[in-house]
């Protein structure tokens, strides 16, 4: 079969002061490049006449009747231009209203910017603001068009002066324009051919400058990052689905999944179709990976190579574009999304503000709509992050307030330490010994699978009673079981731990790891700990992957308090026990437990029966 030729495309965002002729330029470029369909010019003429005005090129861009009638452009538009060896997609972000929102929506991923400046008026505030925003959004290639040269006397001198002005201004924040071109959008000067009006200008034409701009290539030379979107089990395959945002990898490579540092090898690259199977993946590709081990991986994880993982942190600075209707103050807690993960973020401090109108940095406590602010954020879980200038995925975040997207920005990691814990790094150097007895052999001998049955709930909810009685029932039926509780761990393995927040968290981490070992040995291990924090339970889950079962032992605080077998609630209420879960410390109920046992609704026999039945079901071979 003959392979069809294909064309690349360059995304070019147009910016500039509101009356400096952006829309006329785009309309004219469409016309000059033969990109307008037949009949379009007639349609424009008809629509213009209907409104009693001369041919108005900007109507090419204004799609809505409301836009044409009120001469305001409402939202960002994409326009395809047929240019030279590749197409140019013009992204027109209307300037006078909601410019920040319009620039961000679609235009933030542009390859280059075209800044239009009126030769009569020169650089205006909006020109400055737009140029600065291009820079902040990471658009470093800029072409400047000095427009309306047909209206200027003593043109050459005026152009030289303006060119020097613009160059000096752009240089102030590190942009060297690719070209500064004198044009008239209305008359067509220097768009596709050099104009007789500017004999002193030797080129390039505006269109020629477009072909000298570079299309951003996927970051395949950077360290490997794969953002996990999902894990698919449509059939017998378990496929980790995600996007390679930078770097490359091949079958056999060892991947580390942040933030939990689970490790497995790429066993197979699942091809999108069977005609194009490959042993390699690289930046820009949406991929499916089959791992050699059934480790726990979920949406939001980021895979890297072992030697070059992303920084982990739950605090960082954000350069924030704020679009919320409500002002933002320190202390606000919002939903944060970065890559494919989601967590809660709290604004710890507002460090500085940039007023987009005046481009002045100032101190302040309140961020209002369309402000750019530098803020310090902390998140409720540890995230893989990167500096916004290095990594276009891990370095970016979005904030939501309820259902509304209220802001987004770039991460600044200057002065932020990597919180990746040393054990994980050390583990990287430990060579795994291959056992001669594998897990499935153990399971065959025991007649059932190993599992971690993780009971969580308030003190007095009935976790321990349920654990020991369910174990008894299973044991009598011939199952291999064990119960982990405070008594058999606090006195030995965890005797070095106290009751500080960190120590409690470490206590749960160790229990998770020990439980995982028991499960690997083929046993059904029941754990009975309050384990009030979701992140601790998630970490325990990640230690045991698919054999982890979170069981919510549910009872209301009132019920637990009235049971108060050990008199703990009474002492907590009296202030004798500090940070007692449910009384003076929070309990985060599981959001998606595998099973809920409600000990208020059913008696002990019923609860034991239900849990034992569940275990029989999930652990049968």
């Amino acid at each position, binding site marked *: 079969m*003959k*392979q*069809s030729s*294909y064309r690349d*495309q360059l995304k070019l965002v147009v910016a500039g002061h509101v009356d400096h002729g952006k829309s006329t330029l785009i309309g004219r470029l469409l016309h000059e490049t*033969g990109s*307008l*369909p*037949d*009949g*379009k010019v007639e349609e424009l003429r008809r*629509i213009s006449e209907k409104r009693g005005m001369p041919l108005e090129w900007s109507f*090419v861009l*204004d*799609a*809505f*009747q409301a836009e044409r009638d009120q001469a305001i452009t*409402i939202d*960002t*538009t*994409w*326009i*395809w231009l047929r240019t030279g060896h590749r197409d140019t997609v013009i992204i027109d972000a209307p300037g006078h209203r909601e410019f920040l*929102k319009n620039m*961000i*929506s*679609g235009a*933030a*991923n542009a390859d280059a910017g075209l800044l239009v400046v009126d030769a009569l008026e020169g650089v205006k505030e909006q020109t400055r603001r737009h140029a600065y925003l291009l820079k902040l959004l990471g658009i470093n290639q800029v072409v400047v068009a000095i427009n309306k040269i047909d209206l200027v006397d003593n043109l050459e001198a005026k152009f030289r002066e303006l060119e020097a002005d613009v160059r000096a201004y752009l240089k102030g924040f590190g942009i060297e324009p690719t070209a500064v071109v004198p044009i008239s959008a209305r008359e067509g000067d220097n768009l596709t051919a050099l104009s007789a009006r500017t004999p002193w200008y030797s080129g390039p034409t505006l269109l020629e400058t477009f072909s000298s701009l570079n299309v951003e290539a*996927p970051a395949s030379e950077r360290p490997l990052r794969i953002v996990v*979107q*999902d894990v*698919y089990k*449509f*059939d017998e*395959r378990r*496929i980790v*689905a*995600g*996007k390679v945002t930078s770097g490359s990898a091949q079958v056999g490579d060892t991947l580390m999944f942040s933030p939990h540092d689970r490790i497995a090898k790429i066993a197979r690259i699942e091809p*999108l*179709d069977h005609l194009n199977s490959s042993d390699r993946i690289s930046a*820009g590709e*949406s991929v*499916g990976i089959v791992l050699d081990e059934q480790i726990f991986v979920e*949406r939001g994880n980021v895979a890297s190579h072992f030697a070059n993982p992303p920084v982990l942190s739950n605090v960082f600075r954000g350069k924030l574009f704020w*679009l919320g209707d409500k002002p933002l103050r320190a202390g606000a807690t919002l*939903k944060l*999304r*970065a*890559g*494919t993960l989601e967590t809660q973020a709290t604004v710890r401090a507002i460090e500085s503000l940039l007023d987009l109108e005046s481009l002045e940095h100032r101190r302040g406590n309140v961020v209002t709509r369309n402000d750019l602010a530098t803020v310090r954020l902390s998140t409720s879980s540890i995230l893989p992050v990167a500096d916004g200038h290095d990594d276009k995925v891990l370095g970016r*975040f*979005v904030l*939501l307030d*309820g*259902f*509304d*997207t209220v802001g*987004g920005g770039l991460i600044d990691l200057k002065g932020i330490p990597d919180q990746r814990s040393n054990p994980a790094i050390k583990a990287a150097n430990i060579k795994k010994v291959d056992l001669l007895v594998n897990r499935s052999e153990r399971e065959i001998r025991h007649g059932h699978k190993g599992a971690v049955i993780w009971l969580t709930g308030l003190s007095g909810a009935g976790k321990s009673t349920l654990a020991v009685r369910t174990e008894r029932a299973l044991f009598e039926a011939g199952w291999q079981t064990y119960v982990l509780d405070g008594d058999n761990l606090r006195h030995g393995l965890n005797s070095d731990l106290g009751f500080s927040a960190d120590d409690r968290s470490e206590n749960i981490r160790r229990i998770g790891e020990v439980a995982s070992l028991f499960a690997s040995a083929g046993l059904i291990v029941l754990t009975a700990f309050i384990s009030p924090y979701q992140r601790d339970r998630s970490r325990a889950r990640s230690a045991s992957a698919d054999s982890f079962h979170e069981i919510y032992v549910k009872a209301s605080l009132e019920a637990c308090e009235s049971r108060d077998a050990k008199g703990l609630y009474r002492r907590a209420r009296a202030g004798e026990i500090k940070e007692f879960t449910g009384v003076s410390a929070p309990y985060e109920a599981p959001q998606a437990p595998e099973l809920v046992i409600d000990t208020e609704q059913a008696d002990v026999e019923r609860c034991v029966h239900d849990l034992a039945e569940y275990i029989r079901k999930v652990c049968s071979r």
Partner: protein
Amino acid sequence: MDYLSRLEHETVFILREAFARVKPMAMLWSIGKDSTALLWMIRKCFFGHVPFPMIQLDTEMELPEVYEFRDHIAKEWDLDFRAELCPPESEMDPTLPPASRAAARKTAGLKALIERDNYRGIVLGIRRDEQSMRAKERVFSPRARDGVWDFRNQPPEFWDIYKMDLPEGCHLRIHPLLHWTELDIWRYTLRERIPIVPLYLARDGWRYRSLGEKNITTPIRSEASSIEEIIAELEQTRTPERAGRTMDHDSEDSFERLRASGYM
């Protein structure tokens, strides 16, 4: 990676984002070249599976070749296919121009479907280069309870971190092909050998460039009897894609009225 693959990988990313977060979800399959190419990418995206329903908003006015193709593909690709019969023309707004009423019927059919089955996401094969209003669309575009598109106040779309949260009763229109052009779709259809309704290919000097209801869609003069020839023809043409669709020429604002009220 070549240009078409880059477009394809971006589409797959969008589909996976939607599938992970927006439930329940369905796709409107018009049986045309765009949504069939999108369906093809869904099968690749989910490794041979099509994990949500494919719905045709059926006016019972499509050309017979379209129904034939639909039934063949639905069976061959083992789709969860559902034809959703649209309310009759007599129930439509009589102030709409006649050629726009089929679109109004589909809009009403879609509204009924979403209300009945509580879909939170509707995947559509629209492209920005098709029509100037579509050029202003978001990839994830929220719709209010009544299906209305509030184009004056669209939410910001930051990079490819898409808006996927929305209140009860509202839904998202998901547009994974927004960044493709008509030529891209044909080049991809050729490369991937995706089956198409044969009406797109010229017979006796006529072919359909865009497929709509049989009473309001006309074929164009063309000798392009293969996809290669269609591509060559489109590289030269300056006639808009939907020129054969009567509804687009009814009046300046009929498309806008339809779209704001929930048309695709």
